[in-house]
């Protein structure tokens, strides 16, 4: 018996459940809608963008903004609701009767819950970028990748936190509520950080936020490059190295939380 077979079968089973009709079709439609119809190019057209990197960032960012919420909803559904109900009902218990390590079962569930959602998201996004702005995007591929990496950090952080909560409480509903609260909390926190930064003329609040959501560092990095500034602007133009550092730090946190989830699932989870 091949070693990979039980893993692939459990993965196929998980994908079958997570993306059964009409979820895959529905979310693919929303991704396409968010990417093609809800992308906002207004800021790019009105801004005096001076560098190619900043243009590539702005185009990519505007495409992401419409469908990142769809990605977020999909991982909420799959991680909190999907994994949570599998734990609650005993389907994970059934998987535990197969010749597969616990970490293999969790990996299969996470690939189905997050990996497939991510593939769907990136597939539609990259197609859109290629169709809409090949001349701008292709020469600045590094900037495009960095923009995606920075934007995905916070949803993945929420996914990791939801995973931990779901494993600990074995109630998908609570993980779901926490995920939604965290998503909304970040928007509120960024608003507060903006006022604090303007009032104190210090970017500290945004620097702290950038550790968990490096999209702010990226935004101010390219904002500085493009020369965009309003009446109230944050006095912060991080360098590319700093931006990369914030992005790296955020992924260290995300990875640590997932590792914690794996350790708990493999060594501690009693069913």
């Amino acid at each position, binding site marked *: 018996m091949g070693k990979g077979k039980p893993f692939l079968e459990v993965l196929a089973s998980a994908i*079958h459940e997570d993306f059964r009709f009409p979820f895959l079709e529905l979310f693919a439609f929303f991704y396409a809608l968010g990417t093609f119809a809800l992308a906002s190019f207004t800021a790019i057209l009105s801004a005096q963008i001076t560098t190619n990197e900043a243009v590539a960032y702005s185009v990519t960012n505007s495409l992401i903004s419409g469908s990142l919420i769809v990605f977020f909803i999909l991982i909420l559904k799959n991680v909190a609701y999907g994994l949570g109900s599998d734990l609650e009902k005993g389907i994970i218990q*059934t998987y535990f009767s*197969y010749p597969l390590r616990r970490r293999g079962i969790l990996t299969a569930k996470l690939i189905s819950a997050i990996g497939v959602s991510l593939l769907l998201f990136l597939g539609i996004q990259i197609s859109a970028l290629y169709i809409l702005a090949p001349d701008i995007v292709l020469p600045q591929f590094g900037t495009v990748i960095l923009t995606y990496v920075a934007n995905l950090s916070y949803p993945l952080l929420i996914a990791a936190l939801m995973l931990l909560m779901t494993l600990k409480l074995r109630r998908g509903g609570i993980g779901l509520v926490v995920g939604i609260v965290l998503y909304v909390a970040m928007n509120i926190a960024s608003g507060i950080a903006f006022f604090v930064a303007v009032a104190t003329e210090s970017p500290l609040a945004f620097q702290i936020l950038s550790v968990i959501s490096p999209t702010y560092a990226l935004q101010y990095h390219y904002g500085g490059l493009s020369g965009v500034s309003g009446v109230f602007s944050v006095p912060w133009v991080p360098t590319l190295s700093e931006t990369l550092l914030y992005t790296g730090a955020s992924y260290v946190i995300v990875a640590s939380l997932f590792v914690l989830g794996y350790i708990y699932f493999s060594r501690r989870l009693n069913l």
Partner: protein
Amino acid sequence: MSLIVAENLAKSYGRVVAVDGLSLTLDEGSVTGLIGPNGAGKTTTIKMILGLLKPDKGVVKVFGQNPWDNPAIRSMIGVVYEKAFFPAHQKTLEYLQRVCRIFGVSESRAMEVLELVNLQEASDRQIKALSAGMLQKFAIAHALVHSPKLIVADEMTANLDPQARSELLDVVLQLNRDEKAAFLLSSHILPELSRVCDSVAIINRGKVWAFGKLSELYEKYAVGIIRVSTDSSYALEAEIRKLKYVKGLESDIRGISVRVVEGKEDELYEDVPKLAKKIKAKILGIETGSASMQELYRLAIGAKERK
């Protein structure tokens, strides 16, 4: 060879002690019943044996290995949980074929096991569309896909109608006889266990109160049982109960089972007809009988309680 060796297992949920110093062995080819009242620790014991729960104390070995996160031994174990859950939106046959691929057995085995539990007509049905009884049958088919050497079942016949129960017990006997499969069966339905089990572990308050071959347990706990068949059970039962050497008494539709102090059997044979004559009851039969599993269970629990 012992397939399961559990030594001094203990497990608590907060302040609630579920299992407290439980030891148990299950030999190759045996059919062992795990009986006990609700909350006795049966399911917790089974979960520790299957590596779903980590014991707080003690050691459990299945096929000589620690069952926690051990894929190697899972190929040799079939599991039927008390509440069976499977990915709901997949079809029964398709899911079992997937399980065949997981265990590396021919996909034709999927239909074989469905037929074995009389579920072939539901092969095209989604798992979520199965009734509780059908789901239980499906769980049993699922456990048999890879022809395991050991089948651990927690309330395997729950939700099944009497005919399906009977057929399933035949399957247990057949697998045990033909494929030498060992079974650890937890059940509340004691007559079923007495039909298929050769050993029994009586669990109460997280401990094994009695464990051994059925014949040994009957010898130990159920000596001095005499069965009295009569047309007037209730009246005669009241009279027999007054006899000083009667230790215990139970009535059912078959008659009265009387347990007497060892050596007093002959006295009961003499006294019962006299008592029957007194109350004008008719004695249909009187014989030295063997205890039912139910009686054995009560006797063993009772003996331990008295200690």
